[in-house]
């Protein structure tokens, strides 16, 4: 991987980490409400996958979507404002954390309905194919989503129509409190690719390089008109399912073990070892990310609430 891409991935992961930390602290101080699902610990997937995408490529995301949105080019201040339901947010305060979208940057939306993004991403890939462009689509989803009908229908459609799409499963082992072992018929969700006669690959979701290899192949396949791929990234979420989750379903020790596998630390070790970035440069990137997110929070906090008089706007396109 070239150093430029690596640096971009690193920077993006730092932005996501800081964004999530800030969202958590705002939630805990009652300045932010609603369902907030943090992706802390899973940053490598969003950053590495999106490092292969251009603005014109598409993604669909999930309820745990802040990372995907940021990696696909969302401005942290507009995203944070949306988390706070402010009029300056991406969705003018209508959508909240689970619906951040920026169609102009190819982000077709986070989605609060589990697995709903997969068919939509297939549709974007179909559209690219019909329009004859070389755009591709990526559907991010969790392990739990792989048990919805929408997952299976989307994979089959994409396979039979040879659509330029990559299905990226972030297997963080739990759907809320339910472990994949008790909800899912296969150990590796990637195995399900076989049923649709498409490539399926398991990668270490906390390892930028492992993810990168698989995504490269999948992008090439999509652009060559050969159809979809399924990539399963094994990872772990550090925090509860949502902020405030008592987490009775897992031990503190397990969480600690996974924190040791921090994707950011692992990348830093590589950057250090290969002298790609100096300690000083990394420190600077940390503090830049942190001040960028502080400013985003400031922006969001000082933004006005939406005007109730506008509540009926945008139900329909006004011809």
């Amino acid at each position, binding site marked *: 991987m070239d150093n430029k891409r690596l640096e971009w991935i690193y920077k993006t992961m730092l932005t996501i980490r800081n964004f999530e930390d800030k969202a958590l602290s705002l939630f805990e101080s009652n300045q932010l409400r609603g369902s907030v699902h943090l992706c802390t610990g899973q940053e490598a997937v969003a950053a590495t996958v999106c490092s292969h995408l251009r603005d014109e490529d598409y993604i669909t995301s999930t309820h745990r979507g802040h990372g995907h949105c940021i990696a696909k080019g969302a401005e942290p201040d507009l995203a944070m404002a949306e988390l706070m339901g402010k009029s300056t947010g991406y969705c003018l305060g209508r959508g909240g954390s689970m619906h951040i979208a920026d169609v102009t940057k190819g982000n077709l939306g986070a989605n609060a309905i589990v697995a709903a993004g997969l068919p939509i991403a297939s549709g974007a890939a179909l559209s690219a194919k019909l329009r004859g462009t070389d755009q591709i689509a990526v559907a991010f989803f969790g392990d739990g989503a792989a048990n*919805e009908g929408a997952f299976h229908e989307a994979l089959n459609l994409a396979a039979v129509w040879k659509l330029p799409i990559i299905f990226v499963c972030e297997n963080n082992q739990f759907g*809320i409190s339910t472990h994949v072992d008790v*909800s899912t018929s296969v150990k590796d969700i990637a195995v399900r690719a076989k049923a649709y006669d498409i490539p399926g690959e398991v990668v270490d979701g906390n390892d930028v390089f492992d993810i990168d290899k698989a995504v490269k192949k999948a992008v090439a396949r999509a652009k060559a008109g050969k159809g979809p791929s399924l990539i399963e990234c094994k990872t772990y979420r550090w925090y509860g399912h949502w902020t405030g989750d008592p987490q009775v379903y897992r031990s503190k020790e397990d969480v600690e073990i996974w924190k040791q596998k921090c994707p950011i630390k692992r990348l830093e070790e590589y950057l250090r070892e290969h002298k790609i970035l100096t300690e000083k440069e990394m420190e600077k990137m940390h503090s830049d990310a942190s001040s960028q997110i502080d400013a985003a929070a400031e922006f969001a906090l000082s933004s006005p609430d939406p005007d109730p008089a506008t509540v009926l706007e945008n139900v329909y396109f006004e011809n």
Partner: protein
Amino acid sequence: MSTKKYAVAIRDVLQQEMQRDERVFVMGEDIAEQGGIFGCTRGLMEEFGKERVRNTPISEAGFIGAGVGASLTGMRPVIELMYMDFTYVAMDQILNQAAKIRYMYGGKATLPLVIRGQQGIGRGNAGTHSQSVEAFFTHIPGLKVAMPATPADAAGLLRTAIRDNNPIMFFEHKALYAVSGEVPDDPDFSIPFGKAAIMREGADVTVIATSLMVSRALEAAEKLSGEGIDVEVIDPRTILPMDMDTFVGSVKKTGRALVVHEAHRTMGIGAEIAAELTEKAFVYLDAPVARLGAKACTLPFSLVLENAVVPGVDDIVEGVRKICYR
């Protein structure tokens, strides 16, 4: 009588009915160890085991369909949907299968099935997790629809639902789970479907309100009594069947009616009630039957906007004044 929270009242009835009838079992997402994300099945797995308190994959069409199949073949499933908004993922199984099978099979099949869960505003869950979706299930014949507003009604109606031999949609409200109230201890305590509750007697105006709107209507009634308007508040408790007789009886006395629901006003149950009252009590009416419901937009995330969309106490006060020509 015991004082308990709405969520606990539900839990206790599930427990008692599972003790009473081995055919009753519960399934849903995160209902076993976790006890449901709102605690409505807490402790049940410990008592009844994982076969009868069954965690499902995130496969709503799959496990609701499985509920239909199990109920057709001798079991009495009670399915928890984490959010009733997710019925949309399983609409075919509910509206085309559960609702129709008995009729289409010439009455030769029986489906004792309860689909229960919470809905509504109050937690900043935005457009796909804050809706009030009950009206969809009243349009297709074959289902019964309950929406309790108090812990006692939750208990009494849920017991009736579990013992009923029809598919039942049971709508709880997320903002009511923590509300406490008196619930009878009798393990057979039940409330029949189709019997409204008069929550407050009054002579001047009838307000018919459902679910979370009942407490708002009662608050509005208090305020209005200060202005000399005596409001009668009625909670239908089940919207299918609907206790029109009680509404008509009340309107004969008051001559005015306002229907309040959290679901969208457009094509909502308020329209049905208004039409029925017009047919059955026309000569008693001193004003057109009025309706309040959510505005015709997706439930917005922002609290300020959410409050602007769903009827509040002041909207009800204003609505009553209007039909009293004040």
